[in-house]
């Protein structure tokens, strides 16, 4: 690929595709110059020296945005780095990810946030940072939220754990209101979840694995909705997994509260029965739930109760997934399979799937043009060229050895999925071409 002399990526023409964005669907070629979309039109001629990316039979869409990525840096570089995670994101069609703060140390200080932002400056996708609500994610005192908001942090969460104290959460809501930031909650009441390692129900009872009841999630969803009502604050619910949670969020939205929610691909594609063989690849938090909950999550994605699909990409080194089930850390990879799982498992129009994976999460993360960001925007002249080109009918088999992530803890190895990322462009640069990462 030839780069132009000022360091900006070369001119690129995406030819023969169908553009799908928030504004609808049209057959159009997309010309990119200097990192931005220069033209979108029926048939464009490639300028001299332009890189041409073929998109026949494909959809050209705004790049995907992941609200929930664990990049593991600093502290767990053996399982993922900002660079390897960004490469996995690019291969999955994502042009922006929100890095979760449960690193070691946690992202609860300006120094830590700056460090990750610097690591993210040169990689193949935009790395936004979610910072911790409380110092050390310990749930005891507020992190310096104003200072961190000043560095561009839009989302605050203690993800991996919920803020257990309702009183402290109430103060966080109030404090966040002035900062224009959003709190995001991993809803799990620790006294109910206790030592649970899977969903509490028929399967946990048979398998003799300590369970986490649905109520452990639902009581915190209900509590935070009440706090949003009390404070007028905004709350985003991470990885909703139960029918009861979806119901609560739907009711809060009808009431007009400032509530958004996401769901992870594994919560609409796997059930707690997958744990039957005690394979820790299926251990995740919130846990895999029974079929009724899976159906409710799907319905919530279809009717708009759930605003976004977020991966909860959680890399773990192989030896950690060889531990006994109750001792293994929870979490599974997600970036490289999320889009295909959504296309395969959800009976939704592609534009709806793309809304759930691109412009809706971009708006929640403050990464959309309306918030001054560059993602999820319409594919139109002048907008930043953060794009993905998807073949929505191609089938492929997940090969764990080919994943770009440093880890291999995906439960989908060997699964055949529909929908494949052909090309990904980040700020005009083709970072994935024909399914291969370029850097």
């Amino acid at each position: 690929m030839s780069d132009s002399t000022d360091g900006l990526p070369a001119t690129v023409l995406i030819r023969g595709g169908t553009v799908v964005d928030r504004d609808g669907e049209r057959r159009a070629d997309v010309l990119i110059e200097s990192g931005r979309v220069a033209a979108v039109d029926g048939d464009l001629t490639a300028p001299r020296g332009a890189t041409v990316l073929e998109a026949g039979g494909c959809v050209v869409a705004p790049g995907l945005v992941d609200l929930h990525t664990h990049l593991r840096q600093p502290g767990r570089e053996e399982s993922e780095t900002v660079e390897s995670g960004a490469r996995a994101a690019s291969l999955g069609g994502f042009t922006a990810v929100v890095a979760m703060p449960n690193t070691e140390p946690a992202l609860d200080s300006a120094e830590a946030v700056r460090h990750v932002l610097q690591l993210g400056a040169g990689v193949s996708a935009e790395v936004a940072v979610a910072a911790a609500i409380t110092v050390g994610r310990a749930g005891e005192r507020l992190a310096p939220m104003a200072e961190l908001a000043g560095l561009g942090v839009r989302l605050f969460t203690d993800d991996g754990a919920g803020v257990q104290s309702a009183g402290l959460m109430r103060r966080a809501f109030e404090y966040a209101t002035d900062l224009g930031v959003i709190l995001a909650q991993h809803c799990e009441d620790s006294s109910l979840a206790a030592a649970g390692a899977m969903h509490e129900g028929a399967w946990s009872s048979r398998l003799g694995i300590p369970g986490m009841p649905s109520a452990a999630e639902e009581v915190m969803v209900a509590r935070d909705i009440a706090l949003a009502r009390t404070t007028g604050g905004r709350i985003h619910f991470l990885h909703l997994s139960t029918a009861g949670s979806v119901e609560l969020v739907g009711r809060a939205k009808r009431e007009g509260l400032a509530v958004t929610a996401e769901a992870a691909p594994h919560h609409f594609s796997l059930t707690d029965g997958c744990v039957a063989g005690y394979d820790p690849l299926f251990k995740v938090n919130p846990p895999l739930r029974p079929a009724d909950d899976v159906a409710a999550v799907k319905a919530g994605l279809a009717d708009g109760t759930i605003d976004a699909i977020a991966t909860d990409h959680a890399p773990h080194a192989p030896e950690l997934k060889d531990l006994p089930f109750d001792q293994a850390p929870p979490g599974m990879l997600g970036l490289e399979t999320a889009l295909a799982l959504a296309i395969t498992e959800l009976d939704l129009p592609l534009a709806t799937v793309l809304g759930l994976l691109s412009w809706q999460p971009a708006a929640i993360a403050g990464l959309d043009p309306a918030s001054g960001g560059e993602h999820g925007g319409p594919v139109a002249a002048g907008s930043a060229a953060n794009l993905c080109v998807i073949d929505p009918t191609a089938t492929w088999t997940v090969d764990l050895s080919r994943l770009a992530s440093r880890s291999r803890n995906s439960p989908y190895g060997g699964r055949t999925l529909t929908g494949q990322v052909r090309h990904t462009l980040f700020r005009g640069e083709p970072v994935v071409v024909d399914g291969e990462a370029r850097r």
Partner: protein
Amino acid sequence: MSPFPAHLLSMDDLDAEDIAEVLRVADSFVEVGRRANPKVPTLRGRTVATLFFEDSTRTRMSFETAAKRMSADVLSFAAGSSSVKKGESLRDTIETIEAIGIDSVIIRHGSSGVPAQVARWVDHCSVINAGDGWHQHPTQALLDLYTVRQAFGGGDVGLARFEGLQVVIVGDIRHSRVARSQITAYAALGAQVTLVAPATLLPPSLEGWPVVTVTHDLDKVLPKADVVSLLRVQAERGSGEFVPTLREYTAGYGLTVRRAAALHPDAVILHPGPIVRGVEIASEVAELPAALITEQVSNGVAIRMAVLFLLLGQVPVGGAHRV
């Protein structure tokens, strides 16, 4: 008849025919146990390892005695003193043990599912579950069946008695691997299983369990019971979260002298041990002829010999399925 499974991980691995076979084979090993020299050469040249990550005296001794009576070489890995303590992973430990050339690994672990994980990692070694977390303890259930069959006439006569037999399991079923194995085992032979426990000590769901009745009223079910199987109350369960006090537990669920008097004359009392006298069972009741606690222990050796025989003894030394 289908071949005996390669591993014994759960009572779910055995159908009624497999169970009957284990009991039949155990009969001959009970006979061996009565001899002046209770040793047979059946497993000569075989090596069996016990790998216990949880403390256990009786189960480990029972398995090791069983293996030695069959002339197997027995290696004993104590997790506390082995390389596990130095940070070696479970998988590496298992691969090391297999590389040494062990034919069967008998494993006990505090986490449910470890024997199933281990069975996926080994190529030729037979895995026997000697108790995993709250999940299963299949040889305990088999020795219970053997003891009941013996009490009700032995042989095919005793076996036939399981059809419709009223079995009452009392106590901490939620946290009990013994109960999970017993319920499957008794039901496989046609017994009617009743569970008696406060709701806090029952599993969160009994969906799909072959259980006929669940009650908190022990007095109501005792007169009809043929078998009363008690579970040990773990002291930490009586600390206020699951039951308010052990005293309150005993009042509702203990097999007291008064309650034992309500049993019909042929009924038998089982307990996997170790018993906590005065909590789940009164000292006097534990001494009654109907209480078969000692018989359970001695039958345990024969049952474990039978299991080792069925898993290993029918394969020539060197392993038929070994490449």
